[in-house]
């Protein structure tokens, strides 16, 4: 067996670990268009901030490839999948053969056409190690930093530069920050927290025009900047899959073992669609844990295993300047909100199930709620009086509790 993986980030590593649980001898080749040992993308803001060293940004130890007998081709870009020949063509024209292929190509920043953007010299996106290095190279004390996008990446970039400069302005078209993970109340709490640190927000507005060093917003506001970071969103890298005829919707379509429409080809991570059990819909869940779970089941399946991954939900744990928040699932339903000094919690129920939650500040034991959503445990089976108060094992019936606390298999 000859395994080939396009990509070298979370899903790829999950696949290597999945394959090696069942097959310790066959050849695994990893292709990466970057030149680094596997590193953690969400750590780039911590690296920029100086909280994570050059050594600790790596997702797995330096001996990972040798310990797992992986042949790694760094700085090699895959440009085509030839399904009839069973090989992947690289940019330099060479071909790498596969028996089982994993597409773990991830996603890339979305940068819309904006007038004058090409005249801006210090402009960056913020997804890769090289992006963080490029920002660091030009970042000076008191640099004026303009960030387009108040989502997870934009705000992490703000935190990343904050040690060097407090002059940070974030612009977003939405009327509130972190709209993908928070509700109105949550957005307000986090925005206020960031504003007390000195981060400025301009919401319900967008950059209409750039010159080198100035952005003119649609409202007419002019903003001077030294460094521009564009963090509007991400798009899945699906081209290799669609161009070779695999079924692709918004992301690459895969089954519960991450197999694509070609039985020899699997796909995992940000480039795929997952089934969100909290809404019952297929969607791209560009989240690190999801990439690992998908990669792992793909690797297991490629090596002949039968494990499936069917409990995906949107979920995020993130913090800004010491304020932690954990969110999961869908907020469509009947909500119970509790707001106390410094803490906010919202629990959403629908159709007799817990569908989603937001916890800001006190996030203790949030994973119990996550598991209730993923396992779709009916609300009548839970202690309804305790449910909204705090996540605890006491919510469950004694029999389920004994089964859970006495057992050890959790799955995915």
């Amino acid at each position: 067996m000859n395994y080939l993986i396009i990509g070298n980030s979370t899903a790829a590593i999950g696949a290597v670990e999945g394959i090696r649980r069942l097959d310790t001898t066959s050849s695994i080749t990893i292709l990466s268009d970057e030149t680094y040992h596997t590193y953690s993308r969400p750590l780039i803001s911590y690296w920029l901030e100086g909280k994570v060293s050059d050594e600790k940004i790596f997702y797995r130890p330096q001996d990972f490839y040798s310990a797992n007998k992986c042949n790694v081709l760094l700085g090699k870009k895959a440009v085509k999948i030839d399904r009839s020949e069973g090989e992947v063509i690289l940019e330099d024209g060479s071909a790498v053969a596969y028996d089982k292929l994993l597409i773990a190509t991830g996603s890339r920043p979305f940068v819309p056409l904006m007038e004058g953007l090409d005249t801006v010299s210090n402009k960056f996106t913020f997804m890769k190690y090289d992006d963080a290095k490029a920002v660091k190279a030009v970042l000076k004390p008191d640099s004026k930093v303009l960030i387009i996008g108040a989502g997870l990446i934009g705000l992490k970039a703000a935190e990343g530069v904050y040690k060097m400069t407090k002059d940070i302005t974030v612009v977003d078209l939405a009327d509130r920050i972190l709209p993908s993970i928070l509700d109105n109340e949550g957005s307000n709490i986090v925005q206020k927290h960031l504003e007390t640190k000195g981060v400025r927000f301009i919401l319900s507005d967008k950059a209409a025009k750039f010159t080198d060093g100035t952005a003119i917003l649609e409202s007419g506001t002019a903003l001077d900047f030294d460094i521009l970071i564009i963090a509007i969103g991400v798009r899945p890298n699906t081209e290799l899959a669609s161009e070779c005829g695999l079924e692709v919707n918004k992301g690459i379509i895969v089954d519960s073992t991450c197999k694509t429409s070609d039985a020899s080809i699997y796909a995992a991570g940000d480039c795929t669609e997952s089934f969100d059990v909290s809404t019952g819909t297929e969607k791209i869940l560009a989240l690190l844990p999801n990439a690992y779970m998908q990669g792992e089941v793909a690797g297991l399946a490629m090596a002949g295993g039968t494990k499936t991954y069917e409990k995906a939900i949107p979920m995020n744990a993130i913090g800004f300047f010491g304020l932690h928040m954990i969110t999961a699932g869908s907020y469509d339903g009947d909500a119970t909100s509790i707001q106390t000094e410094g803490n906010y919690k919202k629990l959403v129920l629908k159709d007799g199930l817990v569908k989603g939650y937001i916890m800001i500040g006190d996030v203790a034991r949030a994973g119990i709620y996550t598991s209730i959503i993923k396992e779709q445990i009916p609300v009548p089976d839970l202690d309804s009086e305790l449910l909204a108060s705090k996540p605890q094992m006491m919510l469950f019936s004694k029999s389920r509790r004994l089964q859970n606390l006495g057992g050890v298999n959790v799955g995915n």
Partner: protein
Amino acid sequence: MKRVYVNEDWCLGCHLCEYHCSFANSGKSDMVKAFNGNTKTTPRIVIEEGDDINFAVQCRHCDEPLCVKGCIAGALTVTDGVITIDDTRCVGCYTCVLSCPFGCIVTDNEKVIKKCDLCISRTGEPACVKGCPNAAIVFEERG
């Protein structure tokens, strides 16, 4: 593999396991020094108290650990079945808190998370088991 289990019917909810856990993880040789207020003590075991039932919960050391699989920093790893945190890698993002279905990742406003390591760095039984006055917490091999 031996794990820590609680017998709900015997647990008194006395919280002594929390103290023994905190002491065992305090780095102090003397219990008075550990609890004199100058050392941060955070138990890795949590007592849940109900009207007529109490029980202790700590890391189950899952065979398929969601905390390890979801860790963004590669800081949580499994060695011989025991899940441990590498303090030098953890960035305190709390993705493990989001992921753990038992609520067993502990945070105390310090940079890194804390969790039960079955007292592997010490010898004999885990401190919570040794210190339980009613033998409600046991360390044993189950199927």
